[in-house]
């Protein structure tokens, strides 16, 4: 008699289905829950008529394809989000505005330009120095901010690492439990849901791929390396290299950096190793460009107090005996010359000495020796800092402005007329001018007596009458700013004298390299500062090339830096460069932001599709509930009918 058992199976099945529906309704809002459905089958225990109904399996509504797509999308979205979060912090800091780096750079150059209208004004000098300090501080703060964001990212990477290792451990454990249940032919749907949920969470951290293996287990592969193999977990590590590159590596093989392409981990690495590094490089490039340009000009100018009696370098070398080319100087010098002027402070007599510099053959000690060879000058290396110190002998002062020597050089004059040289050279190349008398006679008397001026290449630059009609001792017309005078007396044919004219007194770039008489100290965005003694002695600011209080010639040179395309291989000005830095980060954030929008939309779409397969629709469940209620009622009635039938039979027996 199988009728009762058939009825019972139907009642039990309906009850079970009602249970499952209840479970579905209860978990309608549970994240990661997959709608469960019972698979019914007619039972047939060797009975050709059948033996009722039974539940063969409870399956989860799940689409492998959609789940994989969701996991991938999850990774990508999280990567983008992490990058956005970090970059937005930096973006705020770099955003253009009144106190921003670009604002301060243009304020600095404005200050210089305004100082040019009153170069002797100490208050205005303080304004320039204050603005430069603010700029240096801002650059320091910006690099500090970048460093902090980097540290935050490191901390975030630590959390990510902990979570990855925790999740993979849990997945490995779940694999074990699932294996046990599967071996017993059970369907551990809740465990599977849990594991799916963990994979989903893992995918937020790192790019994840799963591979189904035997007994319901999965292997988890992330960043190209297995993290879970069956029931075994392979933990990861986070490390920062000596070159400040951060990477995830396997705990058991720390030499191979993993190629993380998704999840928060990828976002962290991308920003930390890529964006922050390139920003830091950009700020350093900006600082270096500014320092190099300003320092080279400042070092070859003169302050209000004129030549210096001593100067201490602010940039040291690693080893004073090593060739300069092999040391770690931020602004490496090149082979060239340094022109040193030494002035006798009592008489005002000034000499000009050329010192050859070759970083390939000279060490810092050699440079000190070469400078000490200049009369009345002593240079030494400070052993504590390996910086150069230059001191003038008592009663003398020195500078690097390359002014004309006070007396003509190589004077080969047989007549009685004494030559004089004065003026400020306005040419653009270093040269030596030769003045030569043509035709002999008496200055101011002999008709046709001429003084010729030729440059080093023997080109005639000027030919002036110094005979009849020339007032002896009066200034001849200037040749590129150089003025000659011939005193009264005789001048013989061939009498000659020379003067060296210097446009660039430091072709070697040794002054900015060693930080001698520079404007800035430090050589990168993080170490940039205004030379401390300038702040306390603003009169030392090199505004001129002559030392005159109203001479702004050096400020005019400094002002041209503003428009000089000195950055990015000589293609951008400071403003343009900073503009491109800001616009780059803007583009980055904007791109990431729209990428985030797209990925989120895609995620929603995928999630809607996934929900369509796996989600619980309460209305649907309600309808099903009604259906199962009816099944139950029918089965109950059937049992009751069968019972009644049997009752009738039993009454027959009585």
């Amino acid at each position, binding site marked *: 008699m199988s009728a009762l058992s058939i009825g019972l199976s139907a009642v039990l099945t309906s009850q079970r289905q009602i249970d499952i529906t209840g479970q579905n309704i209860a978990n309608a809002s549970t994240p990661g829950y997959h709608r469960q459905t019972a698979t019914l089958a007619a039972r047939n225990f060797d009975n050709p008529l059948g033996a009722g109904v039974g539940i063969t399996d409870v399956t989860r509504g799940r689409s492998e394809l959609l789940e994989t797509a969701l996991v991938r999308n999850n990774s990508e979205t999280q990567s983008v989000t992490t990058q956005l979060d970090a970059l937005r912090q930096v973006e705020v800091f770099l*955003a*253009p505005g009144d106190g921003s780096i670009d604002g301060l750079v243009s304020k600095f150059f404005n200050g210089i330009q305004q100082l040019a209208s009153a*170069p002797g004004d100490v208050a205005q000098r303080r304004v320039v120095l204050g603005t430069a300090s603010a700029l240096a501080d801002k650059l320091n703060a910006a690099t500090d901010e970048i460093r902090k964001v980097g540290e935050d990212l490191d901390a975030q990477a630590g959390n990510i690492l902990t979570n990855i290792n925790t999740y993979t451990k849990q997945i490995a454990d779940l694999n074990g439990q699932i294996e046990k249940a599967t071996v017993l032919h059970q369907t551990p749907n809740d465990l599977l849901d849990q594991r799916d949920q963990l994979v989903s969470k893992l995918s937020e951290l790192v790019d994840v791929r799963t591979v189904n293996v035997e007994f319901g287990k999965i292997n988890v592969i992330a960043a190209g390396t297995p993290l879970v193999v069956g029931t075994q977990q392979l933990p990861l590590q986070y490390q920062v290299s000596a070159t400040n590159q951060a990477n995830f590596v396997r705990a058991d093989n720390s030499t191979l950096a993993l190629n993380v392409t998704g999840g928060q981990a990828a976002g962290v690495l991308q920003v930390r190793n890529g964006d922050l590094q390139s920003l830091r490089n950009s700020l350093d490039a900006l600082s270096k460009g500014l320092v190099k340009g300003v320092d080279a000009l400042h070092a070859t100018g003169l302050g209000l107090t004129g030549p210096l009696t001593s100067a201490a370098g602010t940039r040291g070398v690693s080893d004073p005996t090593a060739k300069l080319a092999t040391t770690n100087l931020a602004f490496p010098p090149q082979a060239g010359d340094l022109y040193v002027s030494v002035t006798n402070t009592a008489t005002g007599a000034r000499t000009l000495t050329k010192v050859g510099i070759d970083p390939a053959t000279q060490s810092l000690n050699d440079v000190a020796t070469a400078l000490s060879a200049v009369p009345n000058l002593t240079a030494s290396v400070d052993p504590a800092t390996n910086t150069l110190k230059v001191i003038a002998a008592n009663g003398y002062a020195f500078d690097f402005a390359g002014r004309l020597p006070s007396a003509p050089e190589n004077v080969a004059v047989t007549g009685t007329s004494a030559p004089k040289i004065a003026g400020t050279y306005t040419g653009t190349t270093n040269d030596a001018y030769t003045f030569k008398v043509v035709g002999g006679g008496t200055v101011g008397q002999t008709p046709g007596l001429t003084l010729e001026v030729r440059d080093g290449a023997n080109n005639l630059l000027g030919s002036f009458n110094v005979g009849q009609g020339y007032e002896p001792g009066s200034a001849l017309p200037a040749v590129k700013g150089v003025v000659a005078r011939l005193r009264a007396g005789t001048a013989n044919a061939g009498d000659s004298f020379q003067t060296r004219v210097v446009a660039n007194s430091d072709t070697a770039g040794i002054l900015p390299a060693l930080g001698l008489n520079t404007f800035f100290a430090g050589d990168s965005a993080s170490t940039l500062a205004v030379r401390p003694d300038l702040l306390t002695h603003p009169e030392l600011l090199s505004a001129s090339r002559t030392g005159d209080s109203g001479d702004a*010639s050096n400020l005019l040179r400094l002002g041209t830096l503003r428009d000089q395309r000195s950055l990015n291989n000589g293609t951008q000005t400071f403003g343009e460069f900073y503009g491109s830095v*800001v616009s780059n980060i803007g583009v980055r954030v904007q791109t990431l932001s729209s990428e985030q929008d797209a990925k989120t939309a895609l995620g929603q779409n995928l999630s*809607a599709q996934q929900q369509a397969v796996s989600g619980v*629709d309460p209305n649907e469940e309600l309808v099903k509930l009604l259906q199962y209620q009816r099944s139950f009622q029918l089965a109950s009635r059937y049992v009751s009918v069968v019972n009644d039938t049997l009752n009738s039979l039993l009454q027959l027996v009585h």
Partner: protein
Amino acid sequence: MDLRLTLQTTVNRALSSTRLQTDALGKLQEQASSGKRINLPEDDPLGSAAVINARAQDTRLDSDLSNIQTARTTLDVGVSTLQSANQIFIKARELAIEGSSSANDQTALNALATEVDALYKQLVEVANTQHNGQYLFAGARTNTVPFATNAAGTVTYQGGDARAELPVSTSQTVSSFYVGSEVFQARQRGTSVYTGSTGAAPGSGTDSTTGQGTLVIAHTATTFGVSQTTSKNSGVAAGTGSAAGDTVLGPAGANVLSLVDTSGTGAGGTVSLNGGPAVAFTSADANLKVTGPGGEIVYLNTQNIAAGFDSGVDGKVPLTATGTAAASGGAAVALNFTGNQTVTDANGGVTNVDTSNVRRAGTTSVSYTGTYDAFQALAALRDDLRNPRGLSGTDQAKTISARLGDLDRARNNILEVVGEQSATLQNLDGLESHAQDVQLSTKKLITDKESADVADIVVKLQSQQNQFRLTLATSAKLFDQSLLDFIK
């Protein structure tokens, strides 16, 4: 595909769309409250870069405009200072004209001289004018007093030789502090003018002394040659007072004596110099003064006159009178009676003298034409009014009138600088209005790029708000619907 719509999908959709709407609303609110379209570079990366450049341009124009202002103030002060210098010279000119017309009244002239002296001191003040603590006419050496009066009372320039240049645009600078020596000490040297009767004249060379100087021509020794026709020795010799008292100068034969021994024994006769009045001599005269027609004097010793010497027969006796020339305290140079002889004064200034016609010792005053600076012109006028040389009334009037040229030249030179400064000022006006125009368009560019369009935002805000309401209402409606409402 027939999508099943589940509770979670509905919730997610409602959530994400509300989030999107609030986000958009937030952005609009930020734009509305800050008034800026670009708050962060991401809002418009290219626009941000453009704003950075435009803002740099804007602040640069600020400093250009501020420098233009500084330049203008400096030049304005310069122009008004030079105009007061101009007034000084106008006044000095009036005084000079007055002085030349009342040349005979020394008391009146002294009063005028005092006035001129006040003008002179005023001019030194004016030339040393400061603006903001900077000397206007010291060139680039703005901290140095440009014109200092030395112990001798002359004014020397000690400022810089280059003008101070001030940047007023990217490529342009204007001179703001002028070189004082160009303004007050410019010169156009002409031929020097010699006064006095020594016969010295300007040489062919170019002098370097400025202003006014003296040339002292002194006598050294006189010797006598043999007669010009018969080569007979007349026996005349230099008198005992010859070295100190002779004023005659000239190479051999330039001066001649006519000597006639009327006694026939050399005991007495007449002698005359260069055809001047004849003087009687006797063999007792050891120091006989003979004066020539030009006032030149020679002292003779006639104790050994050759008997019977007669210039009418033997020819005249040629004299060789050597001498020296010295300029303003400089070393004396032996006269060589050539077209150009160089004499150096105490300061090293040279004077080229044509000595070929020097016939008399004496002091010549040399006026180095065109070299009087503004100060020297006033000082010379003052001195001429005081008349320390004791010139006669007419001569004094003449010298005073001659000063007018120097005064006018100094004044014209100052006016030339005023003209140059005024032209610069005019140029500055142009630069300023150009800079202002550029700044205006730069500011407009910044506003266009950076500022939010309020009307646009309000409209967008309204539409966003409506959208938001719609989303909320839809979500509410959706959650309202359930099968439960219909089954009992």
